[in-house]
């Protein structure tokens, strides 16, 4: 029997990638291409759906060619995608009817406030697990229905289809109009208990059901691909953060991973029950493999982590490249009592205070740029601790270790500090490409390439581990100071502030 492989398409915010994995979960080849970001107005961020599809075809072709593989060498292809980004297209022609409105786009700001006032946060949170926010697809779709001429009438007649990026790719690959349950859980339109579109939420958003895709498990064969992947089963779709959770083999309740990038995403597996958060976290579907019971996760995102290092580099110019922050931070022993709360556009999970703005607290004449560099890195660790504490309180589980991935895991000082302030080991796995690996795993499970979760666990290996090594009194004193610094960010924005 010749060696066979699984492909993953990772359609991300910045680029589209295709990675081919072998049975041991090792990367065989990679294709990658960036796409354009379209900024029609301040706060608006769009992608061209046709460019995304073209790039996906190219990166697939590239990855196959690099490994000298034919479609027949692949047992399946799985999709991981940027979440919440919203598309509409014509059922007849298959052409997109508007640019994709991305998750970062804030054009629905007013709409979201209106929805919250009219129906209350809990109306959405209880059903969908999400509070009204500009990120989610439902309000973006509503904006399109209200603003693209003729769209609403055509949508009512079933001539127009809505989908997140997974749907768009599955439609182009197989001709079927589907979405996976993890992506659907980010629309603010799906009921977390029934895992189907929720009529009350659709009514609140005024979205016709006829345009919505069918919600399917994350791992099952949706159909055979056409085109470059002709005949390959399209067998999985997952939102990127859920894919990363699977790629990290966080498969049981109480297992958590954090992806440290520009922003950071912490997800905690909560087993087969959705946990409603009282601490400002999101409840989301973790994964559903075929006919198995769905699993759920709590999610806390931290808006400003890697981007604070970039700000330190670009706006203060104290370092030439992001990794140099570790070099600068190591010129001193600690932050000198300095705390940096990067509430650049308010505080997010678990505080949700839009009236907050950033502060550097505890400044004295003693503070040098080295101390500031420390405070910048420590901000990411303290924010992680806040989210972890909220999760533990909501889910009633304890954390035994935090699995990490993403670019900031190259920063040893930061990883050690996270282990220190969480008081649990921080573990980096050997495959950093957890998003793609998760999509490949889901597709491989769907077609029996891997028999079960244990086979995936056997592929997971530790590349680095940081063990907690901080005096408990110092940890708690530091956390107390951090919370005092956070308190000092509040109530900064006034009604009459100029935008």
């Amino acid at each position, binding site marked *: 029997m010749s060696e066979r492989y699984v492909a993953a398409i990772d359609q991300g915010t910045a680029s589209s990638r295709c990675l081919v994995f072998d049975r041991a979960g*090792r990367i065989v080849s990679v294709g990658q291409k960036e796409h354009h970001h379209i900024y029609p107005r301040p706060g608006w961020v769009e992608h061209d759906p046709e460019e995304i599809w073209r790039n996906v075809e190219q990166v697939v072709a590239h990855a196959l060619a690099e490994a000298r593989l034919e479609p027949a060498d692949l047992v399946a292809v799985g999709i991981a995608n940027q979440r919440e980004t919203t598309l509409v297209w014509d059922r007849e022609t298959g052409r997109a009817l508007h640019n994709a409105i991305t998750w970062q786009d804030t054009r629905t700001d007013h709409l979201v406030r209106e929805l919250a006032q009219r129906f209350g946060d809990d109306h959405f949170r209880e059903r969908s697990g999400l509070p009204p926010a500009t990120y989610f697809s439902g309000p973006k779709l509503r904006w399109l229905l209200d603003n693209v001429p003729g769209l609403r009438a055509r949508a009512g007649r079933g001539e127009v289809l809505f989908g997140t990026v997974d749907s768009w790719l599955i439609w182009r690959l197989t001709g079927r109009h589907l979405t996976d349950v993890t992506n659907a859980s980010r629309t603010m339109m799906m009921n977390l208990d029934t895992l189907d579109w929720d009529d009350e939420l659709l009514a609140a958003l005024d979205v016709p059901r006829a345009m919505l895709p069918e919600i399917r498990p994350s791992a099952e064969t949706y159909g055979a691909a056409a085109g470059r992947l002709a005949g390959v089963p399209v067998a999985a779709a997952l939102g990127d953060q859920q894919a990363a959770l699977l790629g990290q083999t966080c498969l049981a309740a109480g297992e958590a991973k954090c992806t440290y990038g520009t922003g950071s995403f912490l997800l905690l597996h909560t087993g087969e029950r959705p946990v409603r958060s009282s601490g400002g976290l999101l409840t989301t579907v973790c994964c559903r493999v075929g006919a198995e019971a769905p699993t759920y996760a709590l999610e806390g995102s931290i808006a400003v982590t890697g981007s604070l290092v970039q700000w330190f580099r670009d706006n203060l110019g104290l370092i030439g490249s992001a*990794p*140099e922050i570790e*070099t600068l931070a190591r010129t001193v022993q600690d932050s000198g009592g300095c705390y940096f709360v990067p509430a650049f556009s308010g505080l997010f999970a678990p505080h949700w205070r839009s009236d907050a703005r950033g502060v550097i607290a505890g400044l004295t004449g003693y503070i040098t740029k080295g101390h500031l560099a420390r405070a910048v890195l420590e901000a990411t660790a303290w924010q992680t601790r806040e989210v972890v504490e909220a999760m533990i309180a909501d889910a009633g589980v304890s954390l035994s270790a935090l699995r990490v991935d993403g670019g900031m895991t*190259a920063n040893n000082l930061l990883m050690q500090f996270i282990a220190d302030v969480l008081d649990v080991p921080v573990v980096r796995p050997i495959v950093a490409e957890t998003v793609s690996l998760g999509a490949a795993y889901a597709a491989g499970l769907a077609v029996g390439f891997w028999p079960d979760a244990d086979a995936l666990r056997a592929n997971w*290996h*530790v590349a*680095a581990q940081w063990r907690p090594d901080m005096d408990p009194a110092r940890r708690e004193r530091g956390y107390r100071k951090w919370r005092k610094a956070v308190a000092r960010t509040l109530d900064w924005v006034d009604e009459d502030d100029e935008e």
Partner: protein
Amino acid sequence: MPGNIQSIERAAAILRLLSGRNRRLGVVDISGELGLPKGTVHGLLRTLQHVGFVEQDPETGKYRLGAALLHMGSSYLDGNELRTRALNWSDSLAARTQEAVRIGTLHDGQVLIVHHVFRPDDSYQTLDVGSLLPAHATALGKVLLAHHPYVAAELARKGMVSYTDQTICDLERLERELEHVRERGWAAEYGELSPSQVSLAAPIMDRRGLTVGAMAIFGPPERLLAARAPRGELLTHVREAAQSVSRELGAIPW
């Protein structure tokens, strides 16, 4: 200013002269430019050449700035930056070879570990980033010394410690070994630091082709060697991984 050392001032003047665009100058040119006797200039150049600050073109006999000098100052590559750029490649090297991976840079004649990937068998291991290894007794060190020849002589002057009966402590033998390393593009160490360990290393180069670091796998001889020589496929993996990092740093593609 009192107390300035004249020969250092003169050496600096030579370096400044050679730092012009594509400057390659002979002894006569330099002595003319600086108004110094040829013999003095020659002596200064010989010392500068010895420490690697200037190089002599074997064909024309002209002098230019040396790799060691370029290596300092603006070309200095931050160890944390090197780790960040190397992360994906070092991970896949560990996955492919099933051995621990380390990346090192030269630091005061020793190898500073800037990155460490655990051997992927989930056994208890501890990160040793920041630790120092002896350059003459590791494959990492041999790769780095091979491309910074003036350091080996300094090490020999200070005395090279013998860790096992395999450790090379003799400068002449080390120089021969480094010559091999330069020719082959990789280095091996056979139980020279610890009897139960072998390491294989290849150079990481930046965009000017300067060796800024080395990448190695570490493991027991029974896994890394076959018939007392490095296993070919492991060596290929090490060299490919180091080349990938070099490409990442903008070294000329190959």
